């Protein structure tokens, strides 16, 4: 493990702890009306937590598959200059295949709000 990851871990924990140290003490007590969620004056009748309809689920599914391309692309970028043209062509093929997926999703209107 390179020391950089250790440094990243250390600064993350310190940032997190600093944030917690600032927000954690200031809780105080509050009455029930003081805790009521703000809706412009009236109290909600139900909990806000519910089966929230994610209108962009088509896009989310597309993302799940398309995101994998990143995993292939990072190591590709490192060796690109060494491998030269073959790397270019192979990744172009890979990406064109994936772009077909976006094209399909767009034609099916899967990106719009359901």
């Amino acid at each position, binding site marked *: 493990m390179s020391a950089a990851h250790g440094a990243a871990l250390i600064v993350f924990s310190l940032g997190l702890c600093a944030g917690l140290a600032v927000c954690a003490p200031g809780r105080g007590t509050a009455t029930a009306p003081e805790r009521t969620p703000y809706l412009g004056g009236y109290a909600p009748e139900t909990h806000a937590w519910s089966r929230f309809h994610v209108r962009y*689920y088509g896009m*989310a*599914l597309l993302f*799940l*598959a398309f*995101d*994998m391309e990143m*995993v*292939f692309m990072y190591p590709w970028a490192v060796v690109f200059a060494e491998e030269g043209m073959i790397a270019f062509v192979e990744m172009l093929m890979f990406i064109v295949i994936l772009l077909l997926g976006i094209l399909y999703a767009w034609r099916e209107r899967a990106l719009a709000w359901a």
Partner: protein
Amino acid sequence: MTLPALLVVSAALFGIGVYGALSQQSFVMIMMGLELMINGAILAAGAFWAFSSGGEPKGQMLVVVFMTVMAVEAAIGFALVINIYRVRKADITEKLKKLKT
């Protein structure tokens, strides 16, 4: 930090995944069990790569393939969940069985 230690952790993750995949009723929770099993597999592949392959890149490739499998499983799984919920109004496995009769 030795190979057996890593493999034991990986076995623990796999075991919890098996338990989850078998015991949960909800489709999405079953998928979580599957992902946990893949998580164990990723760790095992990484461990073998680091300790007994001498840096053979195929070991890393195996991890990448596991990640791809996970993405595919998640995307298709969620799409199926949506479809089943839309068509059968079912969100847990028992309901599906009941409707099949």
